[in-house]
């Protein structure tokens, strides 16, 4: 009987022992420092080049929080499809222990090889989400489609479907950032204007399958994520 009472007491105290708080990460895509609005032209005053983004969507997976170098939190079934066309999807939320202390966040830009070989999956990973290659199995980690005046293609359009999970075209990219301050709401920005300035649209403007170029561009994009103070 005594053990039973203790057990009940323990159960009642669980919610207090494990009080949760929500962490929110909001992605903020930019074009030359201005918020990216799909389908609208952005003039760059420096280069007098105009940019329009028609689609920007990417997978964020395996979110981990660290205190210095040790992992203190790992999100379960951590797969998020961030799609600029769906404002809701820009905000990722997950619950952590209220006592949790951390100063670093890590995530993967894309889908890992194990998941890529796991058959038909659901939710964010459902093949109807438009992020799966049909003719050759595998997830598209990131889609970026748009227009740039200086892009030497028909109608100045570029189209990047970046993915691939097999050596030597493994395109998934780790992103690891020190957080400015533990506040539980963070804004993670990425400037597509900077990306387009860095690459040569004359050389790469249309990537639709795993390749060295896909790996390189994925890496350049991953390097551009930064957390606002």
């Amino acid at each position, binding site marked *: 009987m005594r053990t039973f009472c203790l057990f009940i007491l323990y159960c009642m105290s669980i919610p207090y022992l494990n009080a949760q708080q929500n962490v929110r990460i909001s992605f903020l895509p930019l074009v030359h420092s201005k918020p990216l609005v799909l389908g609208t032209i952005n003039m760059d005053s420096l280069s007098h080049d105009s940019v329009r983004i028609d689609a920007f969507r990417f997978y964020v997976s395996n979110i981990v929080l660290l205190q210095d170098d040790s992992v203190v939190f790992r999100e379960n079934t951590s797969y998020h499809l961030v799609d600029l066309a769906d404002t809701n999807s820009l905000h990722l939320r997950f619950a952590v222990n209220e006592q949790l202390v951390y100063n670093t966040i890590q995530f993967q830009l894309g889908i890992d090889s194990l998941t*890529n*070989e*796991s*058959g*038909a*999956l*659901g939710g964010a990973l*459902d*093949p*109807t989400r*438009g992020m*799966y290659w*049909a*003719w*050759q*199995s*595998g997830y598209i980690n990131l889609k970026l489609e748009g227009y740039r005046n200086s892009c030497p293609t028909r109608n100045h359009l570029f189209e990047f479907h970046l993915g691939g999970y*097999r050596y030597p075209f493994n395109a998934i990219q780790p992103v690891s950032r020190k957080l400015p301050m533990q506040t539980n709401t963070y804004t993670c920005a990425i400037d597509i204007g900077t990306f387009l300035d860095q690459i040569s649209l004359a050389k790469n403007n249309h990537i639709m399958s795993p390749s060295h170029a896909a790996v390189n561009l994925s890496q350049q994009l991953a390097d551009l994520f930064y957390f606002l103070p």
Partner: protein
Amino acid sequence: MKKYGWFLICFVVFLTAFRMLDSVLVFPKHFPKPVYDFKKNPLDERKIALGRVLFYDPLLSSDNTISCASCHSSYNSFAHVDHNLSHGIDDQIGTRNAPALINLAWQKTFMWDGAVNHLDVQALAPITHPKEMGEELTHVIQKLQQSPTYPTLFYQAFGDSIITGQHVLLSLAQFQLTLISANSKYDSMLVKKAAFTPQEKNGYALFQQHCNTCHREPLFSTYAFKNNGLPVDTTLNDFGRWNITHQASDSLLFKVPTLRNLEYSYPYMHDGRFKRLSDVIYHYTNGIQKTKTLSPELQQPIKLTEREKVDLVAFLLTLSDRNFVFNPAFAYPPKIVIPSAKDQ
């Protein structure tokens, strides 16, 4: 007594679980363990039945004319009869021969070049291929959702009448996983229920000597990628595994196909270039083209007398499984459950 009660309950649970798998996935003792992970997609009669209806439904194509079965007919061991290259919507011709769909639970990669890494996701390729079914999975799902019967079938199978891409794919995979062919004369011979004729016996010995390293018993394939010395068809320029990996060492390698049910699955090879088994044997004895990636097993010429060639073919025909080809559980499902069938 209390103790035994628990034991009994566990035992009954265990028994029912076992029987369910048993009733749908039947394969003989001489087969190895399947590579498909059934824990992630446990077989269920309702899912299999739904997968079968989907497999035979032309609704999966953009103009509602082509079903999976159009190219994979049960009477041909689920290969494409008489077509060397596959034949899709608008009478378009593809670039490869449709392989027989048998014993897929033992296969790690799919397609002649291994482009597909899991049976579950294979169906995406034909559904979206412009020369096969030319559809979009999202549109297929809209059509299914609007049909009078599919939401109920999905509810029965998955407990959810909202149809998802995942559920379409998992049920198609379930039906295909049940396509097990293991009831040929060869299989009966192994369990001593049938005996080979002297001619078949001799053919079997020749097979083991020349073919078994790639077409390994009892599945009659290792499903590895090999170059078996076919000259390139310059109208197709298909480099097989190279298309996927872009590694020079993979040029002209194709997935070794099973040799079960050859009697029904003609024509042969990735481009269906051979109509008869005698053409295939002639290729192995006289037609091997030496290229950089030719498999070591075929470097030495295979020499067979005319008599031996006939014996080898006689053995290959012991791999025919009539019960499989005429199994009513695999054939066109009863009309009432095919929602979008026009006038079949």
